[in-house]
């Protein structure tokens, strides 16, 4: 398979999904691997195809994130449940007492729905949602816009895109190998995503096992108010979150709590 054939196949490949197990993509994916070969006898990576593939993945993820943001009307589920049960419901003649009960039930339902609406809208910008979204991003491979081992280049890239670049790295993280970065958006505010490698062996195709997300503290409602980290498992990653110098940090690592604690 040559590069053009591989590109044609991978043009409809979705990174971070079950497509990676689809045999139709397997051979083309193998061809894109840009990490250094583990054995001397293996062929050197094809940088041109690897770069193309990286651009494809970054492009895909940026558009995909917009589809993820389509909001669902908060009352839709209840309307579906109510509407779909109508055909099987029996029609019962209503008596005055039943009217009163029905009105009361309707009132309770309206109050509940209103509360639910405001609660769900209020949650949009809170810390838990932020941390979950960032963790989800970390679990999607190939999301890096810039691949570099040089922290200065990474900072210049972030600063050029008006993302936080004046962060303070914890001692543990500063000893890890920088791999790259990306600028994400949270409620219209930029988030710096810095990617690192701990040095531990990684699964094939992966380059990162430590992610640090930095955002202005004022952009996230709630969350940690001090330098003392809050540690929590979120999806498949262990996370620690803290604030320092007006910035909120979320450190995520592919490992257990003991592994994570080496880095903050």
């Amino acid at each position, binding site marked *: 398979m040559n590069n053009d054939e591989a590109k044609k196949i991978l043009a409809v490949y979705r990174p971070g999904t079950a497509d990676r197990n689809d045999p139709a993509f397997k051979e083309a994916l193998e061809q894109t691997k840009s990490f250094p070969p583990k054995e001397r006898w293996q062929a050197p990576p094809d940088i041109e195809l690897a770069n193309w593939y990286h651009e494809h993945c970054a492009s895909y993820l940026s*558009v995909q994130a*917009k589809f993820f943001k*389509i909001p669902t*009307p908060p009352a839709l*589920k209840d309307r*579906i449940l109510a509407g779909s049960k109508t055909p099987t419901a029996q029609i019962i003649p209503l008596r005055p007492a039943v009217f009163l009960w029905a009105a009361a039930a309707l009132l309770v339902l309206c109050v509940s729905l209103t509360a639910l609406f405001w609660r769900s809208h209020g949650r949009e910008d809170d810390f838990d949602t932020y941390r979950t979204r960032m963790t989800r991003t970390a679990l999607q491979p190939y999301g890096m816009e810039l691949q570099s081992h040089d922290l200065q280049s990474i900072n210049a890239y972030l600063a050029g*895109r008006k993302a936080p670049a004046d962060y303070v790295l914890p001692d543990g993280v500063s000893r890890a190998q920088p791999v790259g970065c990306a600028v994400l958006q949270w409620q219209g505010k930029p988030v710096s995503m810095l990617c690192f490698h701990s040095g531990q062996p990684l699964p094939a195709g992966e380059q990162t096992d430590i992610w640090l997300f930095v955002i202005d503290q004022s952009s996230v409602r709630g969350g940690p108010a001090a330098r003392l980290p809050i540690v929590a498992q979120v999806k498949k990653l262990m996370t620690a979150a803290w604030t320092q110098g007006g910035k909120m940090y979320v450190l995520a690592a592919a490992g257990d709590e003991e592994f994570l604690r080496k880095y903050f």
Partner: protein
Amino acid sequence: MAGASFDNIVKQYYEPLYKFAFSLTRTEADACDLTQQTFYVWATKGHQLRDDSKTKTWLFTTLHRSFLQSRRRETRFPHQPLNEMDDGLPFTDPVMVNEMDWEQVLGALGRVEESYQAAVALFYLEECSYKEIAEILEVPIGTVKSRLARGLGQLKKILIQTSRSGRIGKAQHE
């Protein structure tokens, strides 16, 4: 079928179905109607489905059929094999897309040729494998991929145009 309860099925699938419907119609009211209609059909005919694993595909297929019926389409979309697709897709700059909101991206999808829109929406919603997308659209997998390749090409060109016109408008405003 002796599977999950109606409530659980609604809970599991109403959001992805609504997002798919919204990607096709781009109005909240129409998307809500389509989603509700889909579950209404499920409530009355879902028991006929013998295989629980097909529930998701059944729901998406029903929604897509309802959408096509609502548009009163009389002609089927032509099947085009993958090897006839245009070579080379332009990349969209992630930074450019990040500056857009989801309404702009959905608006761009609305300008893509209609026969490609459903495939592109299902592609980005990540709910379905290619096999499932083919079942939902009732076309072979090769046709799904050809529609996608063409649809993605058009979408990316439109996104680039949208971004440029937005920047020009912004500069003139400033």
